[in-house]
């Protein structure tokens, strides 16, 4: 099977890239070893947030946020996106100082989407928050979407423009012969002039076949979701210095995260939970919101996510091959970036350039000239 572009990985980055490329008329094949959105992109917390982003990511993240607001119309699909403010709670003066320092930097750079709130406003927005919380920061542009649905929305929209999605086929072997990339799976061969590596937690393995070494690691952040509860919070909630993150969906279920990590078994395509850490997350949630005490946990899970040492993604042409590109290593906040990353990758593939400064995301940023 032949195409102009072969994308490895059917997560949100692969699907979004396929969509933007196919819309521009390129012929595209997406190769996915399991099924579309099986991993991080389908099981993440769905947070679509600017709040607390690394400044290096801010321009991309902002552009992505603008796309999210219109995404359902653009794709003619339902991504489940809802605009909801996101709040980072401060529990003490140290937290307030942290927020103030960030506020100053943000203002200097001209970013105005985050604002600090005091205790009274915090209490007003979150009536059930524990009385000892002193304030926080809010971003009103943020929100959430439904991960599995949103990733598949890109897939379906891409398919309407002719992109082909091959599920259940793992890339085993990749090499470039002259101008052609030849990719082999267990029983098929694919040829394309360009490859895009969107292989998530496995992307270092694909990068190596392209010729690029990269210090990627992987881990398994955990989440739990409750059975339906009466509505008690509108905004998505996090904390400045504690492992807390949760949101209540329209159907009443509450998703609780916070960054606690389970055990990642990448070779076996699976994860294991660390219950002691989940118990701590439960305790933290109750401390902040005593009303959650009697909530029933329905399900707990973890997803395999790719991390770079600086927690910034790789969005980059290959360093050691032509006509190869990378988009991976989103370090637990890549769902929000999906829409714009696809656009950037399509631009890179089709024109060799991007409107964004991508220097912080180069694949070879950890290469040292000397030892």
């Amino acid at each position, binding site marked *: 099977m032949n195409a102009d572009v072969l994308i490895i990985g059917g997560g949100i980055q692969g699907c979004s890239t396929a969509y933007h490329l196919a819309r521009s008329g390129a012929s595209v094949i997406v190769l996915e070893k399991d*099924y579309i959105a099986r991993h991080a992109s389908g099981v993440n917390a769905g947070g679509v947030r600017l709040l607390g982003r690394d400044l290096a990511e801010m321009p991309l993240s902002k552009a992505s946020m603008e796309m999210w607001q219109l995404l359902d119309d653009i794709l003619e699909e339902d991504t489940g996106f809802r605009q909801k403010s996101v709040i980072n709670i401060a529990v003490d003066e140290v937290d307030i100082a942290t927020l103030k320092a960030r506020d100053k930097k943000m203002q200097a750079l001209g970013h105005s989407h985050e604002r600090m709130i005091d205790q009274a406003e915090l209490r007003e927005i979150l009536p059930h928050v524990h009385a000892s919380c002193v304030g926080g920061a809010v971003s009103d542009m943020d929100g959430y979407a439904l991960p599995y649905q949103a990733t598949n929305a890109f897939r*379906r929209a891409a398919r309407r423009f002719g992109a082909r999605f091959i599920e259940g086929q793992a890339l085993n072997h990749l090499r470039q012969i002259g101008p052609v990339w030849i990719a082999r799976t267990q029983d098929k061969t694919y040829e394309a002039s360009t490859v895009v590596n969107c292989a998530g937690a496995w992307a270092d393995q694909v990068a190596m076949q392209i010729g690029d070494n990269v210090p990627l690691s992987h881990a398994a952040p955990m989440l739990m979701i409750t*059975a339906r509860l009466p509505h008690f919070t509108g905004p998505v909630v996090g904390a400045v210095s504690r492992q807390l993150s949760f949101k209540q969906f329209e159907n009443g279920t509450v998703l*609780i995260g916070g960054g606690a990590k389970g055990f990642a078994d990448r070779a076996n395509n699976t994860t294991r*939970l660390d*219950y002691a850490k*989940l118990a701590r997350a439960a305790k933290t949630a109750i401390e902040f919101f005593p009303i959650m*005490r009697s909530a029933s946990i329905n399900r*707990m899970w973890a997803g395999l996510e790719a991390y770079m040492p600086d927690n910034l993604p790789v969005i980059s042409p290959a360093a050691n091959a032509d006509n190869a590109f990378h988009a991976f290593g989103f370090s637990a906040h890549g769902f929000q970036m999906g829409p714009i990353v696809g656009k950037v990758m399509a631009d890179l593939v089709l024109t060799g350039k991007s409107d964004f400064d991508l220097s912080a995301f180069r694949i070879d940023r950890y290469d040292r000239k000397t030892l």
Partner: protein
Amino acid sequence: MTYDCVIVGAGPAGMSAAIELANAGARVLVLDRAPRAGGQIFRSAANSPLSDSGALGTDYTAGSKLIERFEASNAEHLSEADVWHVGEDGTVLYTQDGIPRTVQTREILLCPGAMERPMPIPGWTLPGVMTAGAAQVMLKSDAMVAERAIFAGSGPLLYLIVAQYLRLGVKVAALVDTTPRRNYLTSLPKVPGALRSWPMMFKGLGMMREIASSGIPVFKGASNLRVLGQDMATGLEFGCREQQRVMSNHVFLHHGVIPHSNISRSLGLSHIWNAAQHCWQVQTDAWGQSSVPHVSVAGDGAGIIGADAAQSAGRLTALNILKRLGRLTPAERDRKASEDHAVLAKMAPFRAFIDQLYGPSKCLCLPQQADTIVCRCEERRLQDLKEGFEQGARDPNALKSLTRCGMGPCQGRQCGPIVSSLLADWRQEPEAQVGYYRLRSPQRLLSLEELSRFQSRPRGGAE
């Protein structure tokens, strides 16, 4: 210090295994969520709330002997200990008195028993409809019965419960038997083999005679069942030569049992599709050892074999675990096992006959009408799933993510078998090809507060 073996489930299989292991000097812990040992068949047999528990049958009362032997053994038993996670690493998490605790063990033995096969006929989720097994649980544990109930479906357990009701003098509105008439013919070749277990055949026939002579209406070969009623059950409509209606506010459904595979699934053990029994079961060898060597499964939880066979299977599995623990040589294990192996071999033809005679009909396993509910928790209907399938969700997990079928509080424990078989039907591929939901711990809802009290130091760990 860790346990040599932790057993989940104190039914016939778990108790028999525990006795064998404890007698050989192994350190055994048995966890069961019930207040007393006994399992499904011997539920409350040792402390029956019924004034005349003899009405439940001699099998039932005989259970108290096994329970006594179990309680006299050196096996530790924690009752009201609800297991909600079993890890491949030998960690078992359970909650007792509202506090989640952990134990560590070298060998894990799962004896979780069976559950009733879901029967998604129109109206099956209306209040007033429950499984016949649930009705029996109420009878055994709380001496509660429903007057003038309709029993519908097929299989020995259904007839047993009807007989137990009748013996207690409770009025039964009707027995609506869905066993297809042709099954009586197709199972005939298996009768000679089954007669090797003639006491069982005899007991079964006796029960059928008991029901026939009681004079309750019995409708044989019934099909196209539909529970009547808007907000609650008011009766059952079905075809039996002509369209029939029986009115009642209690409809008890049952068409066989299937292994309880939530724990074995969450553990990621290999499972196979058992075509003869039309259900998934964990893959084990002749010693109950699963695809993970230090995890064994015995009793109905490893494949439906019935209570007598479950005791043999429990002992065999225990013998193999003793071998694994170095307490028996392979030769000793084989010698001690020969009798139980023979018992199981002798019972197999009877089981094959029952499986053939009462094999569930496809139209009762799969919802037939577009608006029949498949997933109670999220109220997903056949049409919602069909739509998801047509959008490209061919895998049970993809379908779950897309439609939320199986994402509610029961986590797909009810709709799992239905979804797997529906996809097999639509894909025109065997269930084995289609697969099953990826299940996860916890095995049940856990309150946030309960989880926050988790004691991560293992029981007996400080020694």
